[in-house]
């Protein structure tokens, strides 16, 4: 019973590099989300998706892109990494009202 799986768990990037944070869920949920968590700030919504082929911006989308080609996968792309993107990233999926979270990806940009 995997739930929401995020890879990698940790990553160090250099300024200007790009990477993709992977998120997959096996619960057949239509709704998926990406959040970032900074110390003392709670979680901020980056992007979300209501189903395959549909994505929308959240509160803090700048510097990120997403795609949703399948129900299961919702990757988050950083094109030009900046120190301000150092954070812990959480992916979640939702059925009805309840959200299920992955274990997070800790990203450091140096």
């Amino acid at each position, binding site marked *: 019973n995997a739930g929401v799986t995020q890879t990698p768990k940790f990553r160090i990037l250099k300024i200007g590099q790009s990477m993709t944070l992977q998120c997959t869920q096996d619960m057949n949920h239509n709704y998926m*989300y990406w959040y970032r968590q900074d110390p*003392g700030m709670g*979680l901020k919504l980056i992007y*979300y998706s209501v189903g395959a082929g549909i994505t929308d911006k959240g509160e803090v989308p700048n510097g990120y892109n997403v795609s949703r080609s399948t129900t299961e996968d919702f990757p988050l792309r950083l094109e030009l990494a900046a120190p301000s993107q150092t954070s812990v990233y959480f992916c979640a999926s939702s059925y009805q*009202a*309840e959200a299920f979270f992955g274990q*997070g990806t800790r990203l450091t940009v140096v």
Partner: protein
Amino acid sequence: AQSVTQPDIHITVSEGASLELRCNYSYGATPYLFWYVQSPGQGLQLLLKYFSGDTLVQGIKGFEAEFKRSQSSFNLRKPSVHWSDAAEYFCAPKIGGSQGNLIFGKGTKLSVKP
């Protein structure tokens, strides 16, 4: 604008003491309400939720929360805290119905003294 406030950044309680974590939200209608717990280095685990009906809801690990419409509050309580409850707690209203977006408070870090 919709917002959620957790006024206590850090709380320390003795093991066995009671606990109340406060949460207030600002929204025109009653949102779906959630409390999540996050242990260090871990993801978020759902403690309990309120959608409608009985305003006192029970969750996992002995936690409960009470919804008070007049105060726009959804405070989390536990009668007797265990050392394993040390973690960070997030209140999260869901704005826009069952498939709306969660808005997270800044969290309350709970420390437990032996």
